[in-house]
């Protein structure tokens, strides 16, 4: 179970660590796109875009279906799960910011302890 979660997280972060793949996710979250329509958006080969789509599919960020000769990709798979992953990315930014605030405040008194509480020692 934990192993599965780790594998899924690896696939998710790997998938989102690429600019083109994040862009594809944004497009397919907004609506279904054919892989050839997606390929037309980027300055790369159809095969390269298809490969990005496959990575995203493996990470569970999009699903594909076939309609005639077209492959259609949509971000419906668990849109919720991708929102969760995005909020997790933001959480990482916030943790960095808070660590910097903490360091900035700590630099006020590099050698002194915090001033004692005016009401005397705390009892709790």
């Amino acid at each position: 179970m934990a192993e599965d979660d780790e594998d899924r997280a690896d696939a998710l972060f790997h998938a989102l660590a690429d600019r083109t793949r994040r862009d594809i996710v944004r497009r397919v979250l907004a609506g279904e796109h054919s892989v050839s329509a997606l390929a037309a958006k980027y300055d790369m080969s159809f095969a390269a875009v298809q490969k990005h789509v496959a990575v995203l599919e493996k990470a569970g960020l999009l699903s594909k279906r076939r309609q005639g000769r077209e492959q259609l990709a949509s971000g419906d798979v668990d849109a919720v799960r991708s929102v969760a992953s995005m909020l997790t990315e933001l959480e990482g930014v916030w943790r960095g910011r808070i660590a910097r605030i903490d360091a900035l405040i700590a630099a006020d008194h590099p050698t002194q302890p915090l001033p004692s509480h005016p009401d005397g020692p705390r009892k709790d």
Partner: protein
Amino acid sequence: MPVTDVIKDLDSRTLTITADFAAPLERVWQVYADPRQLEKVWGPPGYPATVVEHELTPGGAMTYYMTSPEGEKYYGRWDVTEVSEPRGFRFDDAFTDDTFTANPEMPVSQNSYAFAEHDGGTRATYVTTYATAEALQQVLEMGMEEGAREAIAQIDVLLAQQ
């Protein structure tokens, strides 16, 4: 780490982060009231922030940009809607062009920062809400591409601890 709680509300696309700082309320307020301190903590490492205007009053604006290692600048603004010194403030955070005019194609997030005395220090609660999942994705595209690697490294560490 001072972060004590993280709540992700998927339905409302809201991230709520709680952190405890070992400093008085006024000291934490100063981080936001002083543009030179704010720019030290806002940008991710390697992307220093520069605060241009700084008016932490209702109706006031705080404009800033972050500079990438390649020298590319990313501009943004806070439009302050509510201030309750030193207990917190609310603002809308938007991406802008280089004249600090909001880009209507980019999402705006609503933010509420609150500070309270807690256990001899200060508890800060940061709430950020995005209107849509697409908005959230766009924000990650624009503002975080650079910080993403670092953030992912941190998240990996967190996941490993679970």
